[in-house]
């Protein structure tokens, strides 16, 4: 799956105000710790000075980021890999330009003292999950791996926070949860009965086609900043956790759990076969439940989704 966009021209370090646009609109999100670091450190603002206005908007979820991208309000937005595929397959003109983390943000959660200890135990049980999100795909993959038919499980569609409440409530037997709520639930006694980082679809940075065509220089700058942020996060894990706790208004302990135990930051940012593998598994599920019109759309989207060139050319050094 090679990208349709042209390869980036090598960007000369921007001499006096010669950026391709005077505005750079990108998002930050609690599920994208690198974005929090970049925003906190102000690297982009420092580099771009007064020539380019940097507009940060918070995304409350992959879906919101996709809305911003579709409306053309965001040049760059962070989503889960599955959400990027969904958007692309449904016609939104976006490309994945980089992978920011491999989060283990989804897992199967059971309440304290539950007799559910493995995925096979879910047979005949009620499970809460937000349909169409990573925990949903996680659940389906887990069930398939355990040889449980999806129809043998009573799946209740609940928003993530409501799923946690329902779990605590005893209204559901298990919950395919999402961090950081999942980490909070653990604090009150819930246990993760099944984890598998490979079923998560990665966190990816997407750009609109228009932005890729018109502002390769700014795009490269942002991707460079992401690589700088990756180094910084690896060098300063505690500060990173603090920033997350601050922005997400969560407990520092939960932030540490999420970030340090369940997120792989040290990875290759170039989108490629690893991500493609997960998405090829998820795609048919999305077709089956009607979220995507046809498998053709999935195939077409997967063929065009990745534009790896910028991540491949990333140079964190420019922010030293």
């Amino acid at each position, binding site marked *: 799956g090679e990208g349709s966009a042209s390869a980036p021209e090598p960007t000369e370090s921007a001499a006096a105000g010669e950026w391709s646009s005077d505005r750079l609109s990108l998002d930050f999100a609690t599920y994208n710790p690198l974005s929090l670091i970049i925003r906190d450190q102000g690297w982009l603002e420092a580099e771009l000075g007064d020539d380019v206005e940097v507009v940060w908007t918070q995304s409350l979820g992959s879906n919101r980021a996709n809305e911003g991208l579709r409306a053309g309000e965001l040049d760059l937005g962070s989503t889960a890999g599955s959400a990027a595929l969904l958007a692309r397959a449904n016609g939104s003109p976006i490309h994945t330009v980089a992978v920011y983390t491999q989060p283990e943000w989804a897992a199967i959660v059971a309440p304290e003292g539950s007799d559910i200890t493995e995925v096979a135990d879910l047979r005949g049980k009620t499970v809460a999950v937000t349909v169409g999100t990573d925990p949903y795909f996680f659940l389906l993959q887990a069930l398939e791996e355990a040889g449980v038919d999806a129809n043998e499980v009573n799946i209740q569609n609940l928003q993530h926070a409501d799923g946690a409440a329902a779990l605590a409530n005893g209204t559901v037997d298990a919950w395919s949860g999402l961090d950081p709520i999942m980490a909070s639930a653990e604090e009150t006694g819930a246990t993760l009965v099944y984890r598998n980082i490979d079923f998560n679809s990665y966190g990816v940075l997407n750009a609109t086609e228009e932005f890729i065509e018109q502002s390769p220089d700014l795009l490269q700058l942002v991707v460079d900043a992401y690589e700088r942020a990756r180094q910084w996060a690896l060098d300063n894990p505690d500060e990173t956790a603090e920033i997350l706790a601050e922005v997400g208004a969560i407990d520092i302990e939960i932030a540490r759990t999420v970030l340090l135990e369940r997120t792989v930051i040290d990875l290759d940012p170039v989108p490629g076969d690893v991500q493609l593998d997960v998405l090829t598994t998820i795609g048919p599920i999305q077709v089956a439940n009607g*979220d995507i019109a046809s498998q053709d759309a999935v195939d077409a989207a997967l063929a065009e989704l990745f534009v790896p060139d910028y991540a491949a050319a990333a140079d964190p050094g420019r922010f030293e």
Partner: protein
Amino acid sequence: MAIDERNRATAARRPEDSGRRAAALPRVAVSVEGRSTVDRRRSGAVSRRRRLAHIGLGALLPIAILALWQAASTFGWIPAYRLPTPESLVVAAIDLGERGLLGLYIAISTQRVLIGFAIGAIIGLVLGAIVGLSRLADGALAPTIGALRAVPSLAWAPLLLLYLGFGEDSKVVLIAIGAAFPVYTTVAGALRHVDRQLVELGRAYGYTGVSLLTTVQLPAIVPAVVSGLRLALAQAWLFLVAAELVGSSMGLGFLLIESQNNGRIDRLFLAIVLLAILGKTTDALVGLLEKRLLKRWG
């Protein structure tokens, strides 16, 4: 033969299952049918022609909007990923229909709205009557109700989930909450300003309390009650989305949210259009009620 999503959640997405569920539809459609019959009975040929002209007039604007929409997509004024074509909505509708979901979604959403609306309207009427007529109740209740009125539907949802679980109950209750406030507000407001002379007349002729309310005060505020019901019904549809956000895997609100999350804007627009059409259709029922009320009380 009410529909209850609870027992069917798992099966919801199985197309082969749709025949049985579609059987629930006629119940909802009955009142729509009923309308034309009533109208027809009492109207001569002239007034029927006039009514048709009136309906034709009302269709102009929607047709114009549709034409503009079609033009926008045909001439590519707006890219298809931002504004789906009218055809793609039809395709999406057919697709959902074939999966056996379209009728089911419409039926269950309509059922939720109508039941919630009925409960909410009665509660609103009772509360409105109490607060509108008693200074004491006004002082004691009105501020709290005024505060609750501004609590958004999205905030109620998790609370109801906590205490009612995610069966039909929590959804109907949420819709009832939404429907109660407009009726309460308009009824309480209007009751405070009923013609004093007529109220005095009622008192002079021995009517007090509930009998005074039903004999003089309620008939006097029929227009306000109707406005309240109109708004309550609209609000019921608005709250439906929040209700189906929680613990739901069917319904138009669910379709709306899910499509929004997935970026399926053809389905998103389909959901919006369906909500608008259903909203208007049920609103016409209130219009029918209004006509009857005005015939009796106007």
